[in-house]
């Protein structure tokens, strides 16, 4: 008998169906992956299983855990099941823990809630569980608070809370999306190990097909609230019967066609850049320590070149970006842009700012919601010495919008009327409007669904062709960087540890750290590899 058996699940939020007629099952010790793009109903299915749907949601169908229909249970019975028979791990480890309670207390809470353990006994079990998830008490005492831990460590605490009582079913909702590749690999390994060791069933929800392909026994692909295809992992990846599955797969491994670099003259040259901060004193009268976020970094970008920058969070990518944009002072080093030196004291001249533009990660937070698109994308125009007339502005707006695949009429709309992908197009239009020499893309596609991401990457390639774009592409996503850059730099602890032609670095990494990064990145099998499988049919 299956551990979890969902039959004909339909969820409505205020009469709008967000999940329709979904049937899924998970056997003990099995990992079922639910994948699909945002809004496909993956998370709603998970919340329905935990019976933690938001207000205003109603559901029909049955959700059986070990034969018992959860939809028919009263709230008190459900509380007894949650945390005991089924546990859940969430996407955002930074906010999933209560900031004012110690980690030991939060893990012990699950234990005390469902067992008769004394506080001391619960604490002992909590320490044991934390050790099981890789947080030994000698290095991570249970008295620590969440803010004293990194994202990966916090996710381990969330996992410890979920598995403390060895539940039969674990639901992990995008458990590694917010984490670095190496941390992601560790957390996934931990989850798989716990599943196999305890014979626990796991529902792994992720938009990342590569994660799914490596770890799941079975996959369910969801689109618009429906399961469009489900099968064993190898079979599904080999056959891919539904067009949506094929589209997802192709978008995930999307290769763009970059034009040749037109002229090989250096555009931006950065020499020995160093940025350090004074840290706050730990004790009174103590000398303040320095933290060097960017250490002696040198590189150059040729005109028309696409340079990538990869590295894990906290490696100094963002500090370097801000320094290049002239938003942060550098202690040492010099930057020249097209032969002219740029001030590095954090007060870059208007001229330099005009020639460097940036596109940020969050397409929802980086626009003022009260301004119309025309105003949003003409914002950089104040950097011009001679302000354009209103006709010139209008035509610049129309041109920029057309360049990114939107209509000139969109200029009069507000930002909330656009989807995530369209917003990112608007961000690119804003960067393009001054015809800058160099655009910095700071995790610019990380928040987008794979299909939208593929479109934006194609747009970049098209702009390279039409506008001779030069860019610095910063991302933690190695697949994307590989596809849209000519050269790549690998950054670790403030230093560039390796740089070279993108293909070369990816196929023959020299530095140990690069090797480790590539090793840790989940990889989607090539279709050719799958087709050649033993039971290909």
């Amino acid at each position, binding site marked *: 008998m299956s551990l979890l058996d969902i039959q004909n699940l339909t969820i409505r939020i205020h009469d709008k169906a967000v999940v329709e007629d979904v049937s899924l099952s998970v056997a003990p010790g099995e990992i079922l992956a639910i994948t699909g793009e945002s809004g496909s109903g993956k998370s709603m299915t998970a919340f329905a299983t*935990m019976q*933690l749907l938001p207000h205003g949601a109603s559901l029909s169908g049955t959700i059986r855990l070990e034969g018992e229909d959860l939809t028919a249970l009263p*709230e*008190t019975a459900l*509380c*007894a*099941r*949650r*945390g*005991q028979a089924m*546990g*859940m791990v*969430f996407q*955002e480890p930074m*906010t*999933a*823990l*209560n*900031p*004012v*309670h110690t980690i030991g207390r939060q893990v012990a*809470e*699950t234990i005390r*809630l*469902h067992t008769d353990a004394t506080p001391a006994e619960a604490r002992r079990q909590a320490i044991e569980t934390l050790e099981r998830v890789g947080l030994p008490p000698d290095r991570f005492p249970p008295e620590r*608070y969440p*803010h*004293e831990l990194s994202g990966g460590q916090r996710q381990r605490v*969330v996992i410890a*809370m*979920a598995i403390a009582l060895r539940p039969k079913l674990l639901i992990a909702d995008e458990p590694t999306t917010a984490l670095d590749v190496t941390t992601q690999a560790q957390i996934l390994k931990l989850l798989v190990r716990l599943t196999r060791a305890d014979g626990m069933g796991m529902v792994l929800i992720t938009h990342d097909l590569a994660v799914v392909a490596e770890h799941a026994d079975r996959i369910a692909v969801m689109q618009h609230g429906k399961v469009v295809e489900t099968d064993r992992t190898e079979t599904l990846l080999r056959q891919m019967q539904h067009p949506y599955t094929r589209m997802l797969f192709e978008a995930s491994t999307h290769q763009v066609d970059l034009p040749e670099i037109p002229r090989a003259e250096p555009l931006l040259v950065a020499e020995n850049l160093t940025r350090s901060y004074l840290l*706050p*004193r*730990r*004790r*009174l009268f103590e000398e303040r320590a320095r933290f060097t976020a960017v250490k002696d970094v040198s590189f150059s970008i040729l005109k028309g070149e696409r340079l990538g920058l990869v590295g894990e969070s906290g490696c100094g990518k963002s500090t370097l970006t801000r320094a290049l944009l002239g938003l942060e002072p550098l202690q040492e080093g010099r930057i020249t842009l097209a032969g002219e030196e740029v001030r590095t004291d954090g007060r870059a001249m208007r001229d330099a700012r005009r020639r460097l533009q940036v596109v940020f990660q969050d397409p929802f937070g980086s626009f003022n919601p009260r301004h119309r698109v025309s105003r949003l994308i003409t914002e950089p125009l104040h950097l011009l010495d001679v302000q354009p007339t209103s006709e010139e502005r209008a035509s610049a707006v129309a041109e920029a919008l057309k360049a990114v695949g939107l209509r000139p009429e969109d200029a009069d709309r507000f930002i909330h009327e656009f989807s995530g992908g369209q917003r990112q197009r608007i961000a690119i239009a804003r960067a393009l409007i001054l015809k800058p020499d160099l655009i910095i893309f700071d995790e610019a596609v990380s928040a987008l669904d794979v299909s939208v991401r593929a479109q934006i990457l194609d747009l970049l390639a098209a702009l390279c062709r039409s506008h001779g774009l030069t860019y610095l592409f910063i991302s933690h996503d190695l697949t994307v960087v590989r596809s849209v850059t000519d050269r790549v730099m690998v950054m670790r602890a403030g230093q560039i540890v390796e740089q070279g032609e993108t293909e070369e670095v990816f196929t023959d990494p020299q530095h140990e750290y690069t090797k480790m990064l590539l090793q840790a990145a989940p990889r989607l099998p090539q279709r050719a590899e799958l087709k050649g499988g033993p039971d290909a049919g």
Partner: protein
Amino acid sequence: MQRYVLKRFGSLILSLFVASLVIFTVIEIAPGDPASFMLGINAQPETLAALRAELGLDQSKLQRYIAWVGGMLTGDFGTSYTYRTPVSEMVADRIGVSIPLALYALTLSITIAIPAGVYAAARRGTAPDLAVLGATQMGVAIPNFWFAMMLVLVFAIQWRVFPAGGFPGWGNGFAAGLKALTLPAIALALPQAAILTRVMRSALLDVLGEDYMRTARAKGLTARQTLWRHGLRNAMIPVLTIVGLQFSFLFAGTIIIEQVFYLPGLGRLIFQSISARDLIVVESVVMLVVFGVILINFIVDLAYAAVDPRLRDRT
């Protein structure tokens, strides 16, 4: 944590120093002669000279400042010109009314507001929530002196359970003192409780949307347990801020209620000494009130750190 406390304490001392400078400057150095201001325009030159000597106005400004601050540090607040009694004694009597009254009112306000705020937040958008919101709207709108008179009408005149005014002094027993302060405390607490309920409700509503509340539910806590165990403490920061402000207000801003109930509190002392142009009393009492307010802020800062561990490591 130590660093945090030291830093806060340093800022307390600095604030007190700056406040003393400002008060001293405004009252003693600002244009006009304090002595002639106190005596009015018809004063005899001899009386004026005598007062000037008594106030030490013949000394340098620096000497006067040092003498004033030094005196306060040793408990010598000078002698009231109008009443000819040491200011310290007058203040001691008044503080014996004002601080208990403020604490009484604040306790009432917190006791009403926190449960009411939590109750409303947990039932957002339902009839009970709207009822609480409506009640707080009234609480904010009703002037507290009118409410005070209504209390007197009902509880003192009609039912005769509480005295209509006056304060017997703590020497006549704790119960009698408390009884005398009950109606004023209720009158003071009503608008405070109304504001605090709204703050509690909205702070908690913000917290309810946090991810860790969902995590707590996934552990098996009931909605109510989640609210009390994980929500309340996280919602406390804005509530503490308001409690601190309210206590500061209740400490010295209660003059109308003191007047209604004929209570000898600090507010009335300030009012009387201003009317009598008794600058010695005004100066010292204002400094004392400032000290009280700064001390309350210091305590609120410490409470922040107690509630939120993240603040302890910050500066």
